[in-house]
């Protein structure tokens, strides 16, 4: 316990450095990292031109594998082996995508992944925010000990818990259902609790006290006052959490055996094994493209918010 207490203290020390002062002004003014800054030290145009070239080469390296994934998904089975490789498929084979939806478990995979990620993140966010509210603003003897106890959970890697958890869930017959992927995580996310609590500590206690004096119940205070207040912090954590659950692979492969019950990541990983022997790379790549696209669209649409909130998350650490 003393170890946990120390690490937690050290963690909060690390936070104090950067977050305390920037965090306090959060509700009013959020730093816009897209803003151009003026003046200060002069920048040499020549250096900037060289950097632009370097960044462009870097961008090509970063994007090439993904562009190639899309390109391969549209090739014929033999076109995949063309040397030198063709970047623009000739001919375009759109039929592969129809095959992905008709002949494979990608559609049920998407459905299962959505069930898991949406239920976990939506309900889990409510639980996490309630706990963060109580930890930051309500009186309860020993609540700091509870917080440190919850934090200690961050120190335990999932692989350490996976075997006993698997045995637990197999005893109650939950193997090959989505429940083992939902139940342990839906009760709250420690990282989210941590950040929301941090965020709420910058909200003056007098706000909550005033509402209390007006006769509002804590339940009502939470829904009408706290929740709208912490929405930006929730949004950041929600998106990160959603992506983590959507992209999870280890827990789903432990529990899901029946193809139509598997989540998308397991489906495409199994396709990779199954269709590689048939040399059907376009089909595998098409399924991979499909698994990336939903998140990519969300990212491109909410890019500004996501990037700002992730940068914010980092600065709070």
């Amino acid at each position: 316990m003393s170890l946990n207490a120390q690490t937690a203290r050290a963690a909060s020390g690390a936070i104090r450095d950067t977050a305390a002062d920037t965090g306090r002004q959060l509700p009013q003014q959020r730093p816009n990292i897209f803003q151009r800054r003026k003046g200060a030290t002069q920048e040499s145009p020549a250096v900037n031109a060289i950097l632009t070239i370097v960044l462009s080469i870097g961008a090509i390296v970063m994007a090439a594998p993904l562009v190639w994934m899309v390109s391969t998904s549209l090739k014929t089975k033999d076109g995949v082996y063309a040397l030198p490789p063709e970047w623009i498929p000739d001919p375009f084979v759109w039929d592969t995508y129809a095959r992905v939806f008709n002949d494979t478990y990608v559609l049920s995979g998407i459905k299962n992944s959505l069930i898991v990620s949406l239920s976990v993140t939506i309900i889990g966010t409510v639980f996490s925010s309630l706990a963060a509210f109580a930890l930051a603003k309500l009186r309860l003897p020993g609540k700091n000990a509870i917080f440190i106890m919850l934090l200690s959970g961050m120190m335990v890697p999932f692989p350490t818990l996976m075997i006993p958890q698997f045995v637990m869930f197999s005893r109650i017959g939950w193997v090959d259902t989505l429940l083992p992927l939902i139940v342990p995580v839906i009760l709250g996310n420690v990282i989210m609790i941590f950040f929301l609590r941090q965020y709420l500590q910058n909200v003056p206690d007098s706000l909550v006290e005033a509402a209390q004096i007006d006769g509002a119940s804590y339940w009502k205070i939470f829904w009408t006052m706290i929740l709208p207040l912490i929405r930006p912090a929730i949004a950041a954590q929600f998106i990160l959490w959603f992506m983590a659950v959507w992209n999870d692979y280890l827990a789903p492969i432990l529990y899901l055996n029946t193809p139509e019950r598997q989540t998308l990541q397991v489906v495409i990983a199994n396709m990779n094994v199954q269709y590689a022997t048939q040399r059907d790379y376009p089909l595998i790549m098409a399924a991979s493209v499909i698994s990336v696209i939903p998140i990519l669209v969300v990212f491109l649409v909410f890019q500004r918010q996501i990037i700002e909130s992730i940068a914010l998350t980092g600065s709070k650490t």
Partner: protein
Amino acid sequence: MATTAPPAAPTTTSWSKEDAKAARKANRKRHRNENAWAAAFMAAPVIGWVAFLLFPMGFSIYASMTNWNGLGNMTFVGFDNYVRLVQDPYFWKALWNTVFYMIGIPIGLAISLALALALSRKIRGRTFFRTVYYIPVISSLAAVAILWQWAYNGDFGLVNQALALVGIEGPNWLMDPTWSKPALIIMAVWKGLGYSTLLYLAAVQAVPRSLYEAAALDGASGWKRFTKITWPMVQPVTFFLVVTNIIGGSMIFTEINIMTPTGGPSWSTASLVWYVWNQAFRNLQMGYATAMALVLGILVLIVTIIQFRINRANDFSID
């Protein structure tokens, strides 16, 4: 929300200025009420902690001292599993591989700090660059692993085709015990670059301009400004990234299992988690695998504590 409903209904508190005793009593009542609500609000994560962390941990400690296939009876064997682990060359190989992957962390951080510094300048298309560098981060690891497995193909892979352009004959990456680990490291750096760049960028932009201006007035060189201002000022982000990357890196599994399903040529890619998973769920050596998993957890904990210690010793602040 039936599970979080509190035992007592909230009551409006009435204050009597004349009667202090009554006020104190009301106060106590109010506190009890508040305590009840607080407990109810915290209930879900606490239940989760007990049921899915504390209980499994306790069970793990016992199971690690048994010989057990996960289904049948558990035979208590004391510390045999731990003795076996110390003597198991595969365990040490997996541990070595896992540590080896960490080479990617300083490489990735150095590149992302450089990128962040470049992107903090007035460069055309900064938003575009930021987006492109970030896309691998949001892509699913399974899809990325499948893609890179194909990209590392010795004959038709994208990587060797690109190397051929500059006259290098690339190895057969994932089939070559020398190159399989570097291959995985390169992919991990590519995947994680955007995230660290973003955090560094925010930190770099948060450095007060006045510090640089003062340093420039004092005639400090660019390198000096970097080592004396930028580097210390982004240190909390570096610390955060190192800690999270080491914890994340110690759990590396997905890409190993997808790209090298048998642990790689001469077992050169098998990570600790992969070995634990393999022992537990393929070989049904649940007792032994649990012991390994516990050792992994303890190792991660020790490394994390050491890092917090070092960080505290180096605590740095300007002004």
